[in-house]
């Protein structure tokens, strides 16, 4: 592990050094020129130019340092931005998951509702096949009335029948009695003239009618 990280470190340092080869070299050169300038017994003009040159190099170094600082700032801000986006997306994912489970529940509910509705429809179909209750009641009422009427008629007819029976019975019994009296009559014939006349008047008319 240590070897790997060392390699990484070396690689990184090489990269950085490679990138900023100008910078590192510049700083070294600056240092060397500064020491040379301090120790050089050269003319003031040369010294001044050297001095200016050193300022220039220094400025260059500062400039590149500023650049790197800005890049670093930018990187940090980009990182933050990405972090924000990342957490945003995560939230969206979780809310989408929740919505999915909600929808699944909805589907289950809807399926149950559909099943209930179909059961209802199926039952309704069967019920429709049976006749309406009102109509059946009305039919029942009409039938009842008819029944009542018919039984009234039957009673009347029965009563009439009874009456006729009784009347015929009376008639027949009267005829019977008359017949009996007539049968007894020949014995009484020579004796009771008066009685016969009165009876005969009554009897002749029906006997003539009978013949």
């Amino acid at each position, binding site marked *: 592990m240590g070897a790997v990280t060392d390699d990484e470190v070396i690689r990184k340092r090489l990269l950085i050094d490679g990138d900023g080869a100008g910078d590192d070299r510049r700083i070294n050169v600056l240092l060397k020129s500064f020491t040379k300038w301090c120790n050089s017994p050269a003319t003031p003009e040369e010294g001044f130019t050297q001095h200016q040159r050193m300022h220039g190099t220094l400025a260059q170094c500062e400039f590149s340092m500023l650049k790197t600082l800005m890049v670093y700032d930018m990187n940090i801000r980009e990182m933050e931005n990405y972090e924000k986006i990342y957490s945003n997306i995560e939230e969206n994912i979780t809310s989408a998951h929740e919505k999915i489970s909600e929808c699944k529940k909805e589907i*289950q509910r809807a*399926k*149950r509702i*559909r*099943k209930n509705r*179909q*059961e209802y*429809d*199926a*039952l309704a*179909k*069967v019920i429709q096949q049976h006749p309406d209750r009102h109509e059946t009641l009305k039919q029942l009422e009409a039938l009842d009335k008819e029944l009542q009427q018919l039984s009234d008629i039957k009673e009347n007819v029965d009563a009439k029948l009874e009456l006729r029976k009784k009347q015929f019975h009376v008639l027949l019994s009267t005829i019977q009695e008359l017949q009996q009296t007539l049968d007894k009559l020949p014995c009484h014939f020579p004796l009771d003239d008066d009685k016969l006349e009165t009876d005969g008047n009554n009897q002749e008319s029906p006997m003539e009618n009978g013949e």
Partner: protein
Amino acid sequence: IERLLHMSVFSQSFSPCGKFLAAGNNYGEIALFSLSAALGPDANELSQKPILTFTAHEGPVFSLLSTDSHLLSAGNGEISAWSWAELIKKCLCALPPSLRSSLEIPEINAMALNPADNSLAVGGGDNNVHIMDLENGAFKSVLQGHTDYIHCLSVRERASEVLSGGEDGAVRIWDTRTSQCVHCVEVYKYETCARPQHGKWISCLTTDSDWMLCGGGPSLSLWHLRSMSPTSVFPLSGCQRQATFYQDMILTVGEGQCVSHCLMGGEVKAQIPCTPHSINTLAINTNSTEHRVLTVGGSSDHIDVFTNLSYKAFSLRF
């Protein structure tokens, strides 16, 4: 190869954890498939083969049922209970079942579990429905009344009733507490459902506590149990062998080479094609949420697995 060609899958059952599927075929074998392996991201051909196959019975395994801890298989006259824990551990060597039923019932076609009183209703070729208590394996009662052998059973939990459909064309509703037949519906006598060209037998029966689906010779029809009247008849040409309610739809399989999706109103919404030409069994894995699949088995050695109801995902092979 010939053996595979003549194989028919008659029954299926999912494990209580939802990760395994047990399928029984006409040779008396039960094969255990691992769903997590077959559905996993690195599934290959090998994961579509069973992890364990064993011969459970001499005759075909017509019915498989899972309780919380055991797999019940019905063979020719006997019911065996296998422990799921042992099966999952793949104990191949001399796997004796934990329990064998005491009573010999000829040709068990259907079994249904009644969780209310932990009993098992068994329908058989002797025209009777036998109720067995699962705790001690003893047979509690016999429901007699059918005049021909029983094809299918269903349990109506809310009212604690058992429904049975048989070859005699009658669907009988029995009260489990009194062991009496509460209703008897002769489906073929209803003009809307009857299909005399196919016969009068009822081969598929399922209930949703208020509604009942039954079909077979007569067309598949939806009945309202309270009023005992057929509300919708489904225009499917073949004879249906298994049907189930799923969410707001009805899934049914039978003689056609497809799974039919129907709505309760009576319309057929979709027919999804699958491998076997004639399908005997349909099962939905409700025991697990991540392996929620529909599996279909029939007159082929392939068991089709549907991860999405609209199309067949892949097939498991015996």
